[in-house]
């Protein structure tokens, strides 16, 4: 490390690199905050530009977009109940209720602090013990992955709030929706109802936007309209303490931040998982460990800290298998791998010895990106809160237009727009009957990993499920899942 740090610093510390990271962060935050636009899309668009840059400059900019975009989704999640990115689906649960209490500023600041600390933590681990973490991640075969997904599903009972059975029904809805389309192993059609557009499955963006944004729009339509009066979607508190996170609040949530950082890092290091799963698992774990679990879902600051720390800690975690083993865990890291390959840098163990100065320059870039993230996000905060000062009469119609464009933008299909509307109506009815919406997303996200890992495990185990409880890591997650399920249902009985 010491041999490379000085040459790496010389490569990284240029005005151009700092500017590129800042630009990446800004683009990421804006993209992340707009429902329909996503980080892989922004990274793919910026990719050709990076071919003409030094690999450190190019990768630093893309890392900026990655970090900014993962955080940016929380802005719209908190302010308008619409997660700008899938990773922010868990932030909605407490972020929007906090905004409804006039504490949007507090929730947004918690999101910034959580995101930046989560990033710092995972980046420091990436720099110091990346190889060891990667070796543990390599031990995750199909059995372990299935148990991990099973454990993640068990958190549905925790994030459900009031009626756990309704949460389970919502989770099953998400699982079922994802089974529509082509089956992942044999590629046969399931539940397409003869509709060609459903062959590719239910797309995520229309589902996400419909569930949260359209249902909220319909809920707002219900409210009585007073002609000419300037109504706001949520109040903005003038009390200073409602607009920042106090030191005692930060201290109270420090354990949650640390736990969520670890969860995000661990899940990020596993290829094929992602920030949304990390956010939900962190949220579930925080609620399970909390002294005030009843506050979750009603505007708990702990919930925002957990979700935002968890999803941003994935950023550093996802770079671990990429840089140490040459395995990209998702679309974003796959594109980043492309940048390295274009410049003749082959990710893997040799990268650290052959191009140590470049690797450590990238590491410095990740740390500097975190510092810049804090300042850029904090500067943008006042601007974002201004959104809430727009009258309801103009803001909600605008949100609907943005959502429609966002749902269409994913695959350029009008069918997706209709799907978004249908899911919006279903979600509105679910809300009316107190069915939680977050488990739908949770089930939808986890289904492919659940099904493929189960099939792979059965093939590997020659049809036996026994290794799920005989392999230590797998058994650990099964026990953890059983504990979570029992605890959440026993809490409901009380």
């Amino acid at each position, binding site marked *: 490390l010491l041999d490379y740090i000085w040459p790496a610093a010389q490569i990284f510390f240029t005005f151009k690199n700092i500017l590129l990271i800042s630009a990446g962060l800004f683009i990421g935050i804006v993209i992340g905050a707009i429902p329909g636009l996503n980080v892989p899309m922004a990274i793919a668009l910026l990719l050709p530009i990076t071919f003409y840059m030094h690999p450190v400059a190019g990768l630093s900019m893309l890392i900026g977009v990655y970090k900014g975009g993962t955080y940016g989704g929380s802005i719209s999640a908190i302010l308008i109940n619409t997660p700008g990115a899938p990773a922010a689906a868990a932030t909605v649960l407490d972020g929007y209720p906090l905004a409804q209490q006039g504490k949007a500023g507090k929730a947004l600041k918690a999101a910034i602090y959580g995101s930046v600390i989560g990033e710092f933590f995972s980046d420091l681990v990436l720099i110091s013990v990346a190889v060891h973490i990667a070796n543990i991640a390599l031990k995750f075969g199909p059995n372990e992955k299935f148990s991990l997904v099973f454990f993640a599903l068990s958190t549905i009972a925790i994030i459900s709030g009031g009626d756990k059975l309704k949460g389970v*029904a919502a989770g099953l809805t998400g699982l079922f929706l994802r089974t529509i389309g082509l089956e992942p192993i044999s590629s046969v059609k399931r539940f397409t109802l003869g509709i060609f557009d459903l062959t590719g499955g239910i797309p995520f963006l229309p589902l996400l936007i419909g569930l949260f944004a359209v249902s909220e729009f*319909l809920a707002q339509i219900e409210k009585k309209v007073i002609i000419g009066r300037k109504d706001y979607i949520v109040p903005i508190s003038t009390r200073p303490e409602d607009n920042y996170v106090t030191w005692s609040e930060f201290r109270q949530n420090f354990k949650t931040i640390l736990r969520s950082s670890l969860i995000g890092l661990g899940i990020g290091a596993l290829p094929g998982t992602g920030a949304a799963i990390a956010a939900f698992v962190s949220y579930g774990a925080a609620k399970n460990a909390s002294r005030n679990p009843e506050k979750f879902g009603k505007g708990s600051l702990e919930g925002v800290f957990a979700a935002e720390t968890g999803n941003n800690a994935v950023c550093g975690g996802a770079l671990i298998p990429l840089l140490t083993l040459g395995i990209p865990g998702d679309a974003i890291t796959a594109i980043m791998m492309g940048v390295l390959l274009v410049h003749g840098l082959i990710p893997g163990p040799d990268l650290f010895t052959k191009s140590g100065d470049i690797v450590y320059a990238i590491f410095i870039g990740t740390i500097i990106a975190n510092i810049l993230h804090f300042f850029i996000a904090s500067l943008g905060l006042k601007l974002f809160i201004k959104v809430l000062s727009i009258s309801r009469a103009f803001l909600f119609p605008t949100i609907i237009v943005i959502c429609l464009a966002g749902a269409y933008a994913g695959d350029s299909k*009008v069918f997706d727009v209709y799907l978004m*509307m249908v899911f919006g109506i279903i979600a509105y009815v679910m809300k*009316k*009957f107190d069915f939680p919406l977050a488990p739908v997303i949770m089930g939808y996200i986890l289904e492919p990993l659940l099904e493929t890992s189960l*099939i792979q495990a059965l093939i590997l185990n020659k049809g036996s499920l026994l290794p799920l409880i005989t392999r230590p890591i797998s058994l650990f997650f099964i026990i953890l899942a059983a504990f979570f399920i029992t605890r959440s249902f026993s809490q409901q009985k009380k």
Partner: protein
Amino acid sequence: MKIKMGRSFGEGAAVFLIGLGILLLLPSQVEKPLVSEVQIPPSFLPMVVAIGFMLTGAGMAISSLSSKTLEFPFTKVEALRIFYSIGLLFLYSFLFSRIGFVVSSSLILGILAYLFGARNWVKIFLTMALVPGTIWFLLEFIFSIPLPRGLLF
């Protein structure tokens, strides 16, 4: 006025029926794989989900027997407002591909702003012009994502 209905038992029954519906649709809606020797058939997970729905629904219905009948939280005026709004949203989705994004969005923005109580016509017209225009510019020119142009644009 509130519409009263026993919702808890009904909810459980609805969830149960969704599961039953999935189960009944399985033979016709899940194709058979070309390779006959598969560890898990493609219908396995949907079947598990269907059974899960049925068990959860049954659990909800049984537990509702000991709870009170709840009020359905809806007034007739609210129901009408929702009904019209849903119609408007579907009309927007339909027009979106026919007359183009900019024109249909301008129209819907004006109508919705009016329905939400806005009466400042300068602001309404500014919103109608600026919002679709900005989104159009951002998606078409910055991100190269084409939006429907339709007949009028």
